């Protein structure tokens, strides 16, 4: 967890994790959707829950010529719409009084010098530590400019005149588009901030159920002894979206594709949480050391033949989702009509470790699938065919443990049970735990948890440099294979609203398996 020395006697034992420290939060890209819909509501909800430290100042940094007042009004309007806990005037006023707008181009060095002066002034007024948290929520094209200018303005360094102060940076995804660009961005980030002060956000890790994976595995004695090749047949990770390219997202997506947009970060993070060894402790590096070992142990699909065998890319055609006609991917707004970008990808991943040798991890992600759902299913091996093979229908199937990430977060276990009656018939039944049914209180949004952790200096739920680069190394090789001409890796097609292309079904069928029906 955090590394700050506890010198406040009242802190100890009051909460089960580090308290966030007072700081100035500077958000780059403050006029954007992320700031309005996620970041400010997250800070507001932390204030509602009494988790936000007193004296936190928020500075929105952006190009538009807005006033403090105009900025606050826009934020308030959105907060009323989207805040998880509603909108309390008194809490909002208290928060808004600490919100300011800083107008500057991202490339303008002078703007950063003025920012430094403004932050110094805030520190003087507040009289406390000059802690700073920089949140880069701008378009990726500006990441370099922002980081380099922060460095030039002396905003990234530990200040000799401010003992114990910290400056941290949160970087939004996408963290690079290839291994080379990620390495370059890492160089720039680490040339400006130390790795310990760098927080690469992956909001999937802030989700309650993603955090619960470690609890499920390591706080329940029944699972961990079975969590290996001896008992697990295979694992499936599915991220299905029913949406397509609405709202102009086709422009970004057509350059990225499913593999870069979702698999490189979110889904490989989930895979590493499922497959990692128990960490020696719960420190940020204790957990991340184990996660990165998983990514490093992924068997590399580094030839067109291996990619053709183990990866399916696809695009949706015109079809029907939730009763509505929807266009095909290439007909979507801002998508190249000849696009070869995948809106669907399915992978067969092998983790070459003692624990997982021979156990495939099937990962799939797609747009315009029948419904929105992200889940991990652990498929246990079937029982020996000794006792019940003579019964009508035999044994239905092996046990399946399902971890639902979103929506309808929860965990279920499928097991076989005897049907009532005089004959011995079995059917699978489901034991189901749902967060919403069991805990009426809504979970904090991922951004609430992640912002709080960054203020408290706890990087456990953020990606480390080596994790990001190892993930890109794996992804890049697949992209290279796809890019090789004449190697016969076509884009598979499927009607929108179906569960993906036939080729993805065949990939599992070759192993004698099928995709789980969600």
């Amino acid at each position, binding site marked *: 967890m955090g590394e700050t020395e506890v*010198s*406040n*006697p*009242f*802190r*100890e*034992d*009051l*909460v*089960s994790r580090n*308290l966030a*420290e*007072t700081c100035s939060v500077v958000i780059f890209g403050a006029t954007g959707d992320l700031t309005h819909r996620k970041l400010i509501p997250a800070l507001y909800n932390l*204030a*509602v*829950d*009494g988790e936000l*430290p*007193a*004296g936190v100042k928020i500075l929105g940094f952006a190009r538009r010529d807005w006033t403090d007042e105009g900025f606050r009004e826009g934020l308030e309007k959105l907060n009323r719409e989207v805040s998880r806990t509603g909108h309390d005037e*008194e*809490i909002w*006023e*208290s928060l808004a009084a600490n919100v300011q707008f800083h107008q500057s181009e991202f490339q303008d060095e002078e703007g950063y010098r003025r920012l430094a002066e403004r932050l110094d002034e805030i520190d003087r*007024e*507040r*009289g*406390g*530590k000059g802690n700073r948290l920089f949140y880069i929520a701008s378009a990726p094209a500006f990441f370099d400019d922002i980081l380099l200018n922060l460095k030039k303005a002396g905003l990234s360094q530990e200040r000799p005149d401010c003992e*114990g102060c910290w400056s941290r940076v949160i970087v939004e995804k996408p963290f690079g588009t290839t291994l080379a660009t990620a390495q370059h961005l890492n160089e720039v980030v680490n040339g400006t901030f130390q790795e310990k002060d760098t927080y690469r956000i992956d909001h999937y890790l802030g989700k309650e159920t993603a955090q619960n994976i470690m609890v499920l595995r390591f706080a329940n004695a029944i699972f961990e002894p079975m969590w290996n090749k001896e008992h697990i047949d295979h694992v499936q990770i599915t991220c299905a979206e029913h949406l397509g390219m609405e709202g102009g997202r086709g422009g970004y997506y057509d350059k990225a594709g499913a593999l870069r947009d979702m698999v490189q970060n979110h889904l490989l993070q989930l895979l590493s949480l499922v497959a990692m060894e128990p960490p020696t402790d719960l420190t940020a590096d204790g957990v991340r050391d184990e996660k990165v070992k998983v990514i490093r142990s992924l068997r590399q699909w580094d030839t067109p033949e291996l990619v053709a065998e183990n990866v399916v890319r696809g695009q949706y055609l015109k079809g029907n989702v939730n009763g509505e006609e929807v266009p095909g991917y290439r007909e979507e707004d801002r998508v190249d009509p000849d696009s070869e970008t995948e809106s669907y990808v399915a992978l067969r991943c092998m983790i070459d470790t003692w624990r997982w040798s021979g156990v495939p991890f099937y990962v799939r992600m797609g747009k315009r699938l029948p419904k929105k759902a992200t889940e991990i299913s652990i498929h246990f091996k079937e029982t020996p065919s000794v006792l019940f093979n003579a019964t009508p229908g035999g044994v239905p199937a092996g046990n399946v443990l399902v971890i639902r990430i979103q929506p309808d977060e929860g965990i279920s276990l499928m097991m076989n049970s005897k049907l009532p009656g005089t004959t011995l018939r079995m059917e699978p039944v489901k034991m189901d735990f*749902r967060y*919403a*049914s*069991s*805990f*009426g*209180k*809504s979970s904090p949004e991922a951004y609430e948890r992640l912002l709080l952790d960054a203020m408290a200096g706890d990087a456990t739920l953020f990606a480390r440099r080596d994790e990001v680069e190892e993930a890109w190394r794996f992804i890049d090789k697949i992209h290279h294979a796809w890019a090789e001409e004449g190697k016969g890796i076509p884009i598979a097609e499927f009607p929108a609203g179906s569960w993906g292309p036939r080729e993805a079904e065949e990939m599992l069928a070759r192993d004698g398996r099928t995709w789980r029906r969600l």
Partner: protein
Amino acid sequence: MGAPGGDFKMSKVTYTERENLGVPVEVGAIDRELRKLWEADDASTNASLMNFLVYTEDPEGLQKNSEMIQSLTQEHACRAVLIAMNRKASEASVKAWITAHCHLAHGKKSICSEQVAFLLQGKSLGRLRNTVFAHLNSDLPLVFWWQGEFSELFEEGLYRLLNRLIFDSSTWRDPLVGFHRLAEAREDTQGRMVTQDLSWTRNYFYRLAIARLFDDPIAQQNFSKINKVFIKAHPSQRMAALQLAAWVIERSGWKLCSLQEGIWLIESREGNEISLEFDWCDEAAPIAELVISAPDCRVAVSREKGNSHICQAICTEGHCVDFSGPADSDDPEGLVASQLSRGGKNSLFMEVFPQFMKLLEEDC
């Protein structure tokens, strides 16, 4: 299963005068009737995270507690067992009712918690304990909310099986006796039973605010120079105020010395003298103000009566920061809900307990 958000009501059943308790049932048939209640409806989900037992020695308390459970189960699915004991009744008898409290979870599925209510009349050895144990969901934790003072029915055979005991010392006529009884129970259970005083829960956000304010380096620099602690509270919340003071003393490593003319004298680690003063005010919020002062720094948390927020402030020469935050609930139901949300072993309360008892013994 009936309209979501309201009590379960079975249309063919004649209601008794205790309408919101649900359907009257024979005690021996409770499990069967509960099964029937669920079998009659496929659309609702029976959810339960704990056995939540609410006990009162006020025979009229069942109705109020049932209304409270209706609200509480929105966030805390449970099997609720309500027991009201009328020990003054001349003849022993038992009446029971079952119902289910249903809510729409996140606007979608109807989630229901079942409730069994008992009215126990007259004295009968071990009846409370046996009634409790006969109607629990196996394996789920047992949270017991004892309303009012611990009577002789609070006995080892009962409390040894509790996972969590909730009580409200602000309702006790003789807190010293009550806390000694609690200490014995803790000893008997070797600390396995988690104890939760709602008076302690009442000052949670005050403690959180003080911890947060002392993150400020200026407050930390002035910590060793603190010379005064002042607490203003409503007289009915004496226990919450004393516990808050005990927490400040315990966490600071200070030593209680003496009580002189209503002002406590405390010695800091450095040997400095600190005064601790209480102001009991009928017009104040439950906990109205906590001020920790040093010559050059003042840390204050305050709340106006009826306000749902607290104000946190730190002032030194040259700068002053204040900030609003949530306040603790005023009603027992809200405090219980907060407590159930936080969970934990409440070990901090037990650490503070010796200092609190010193304050209480002198106060009484």
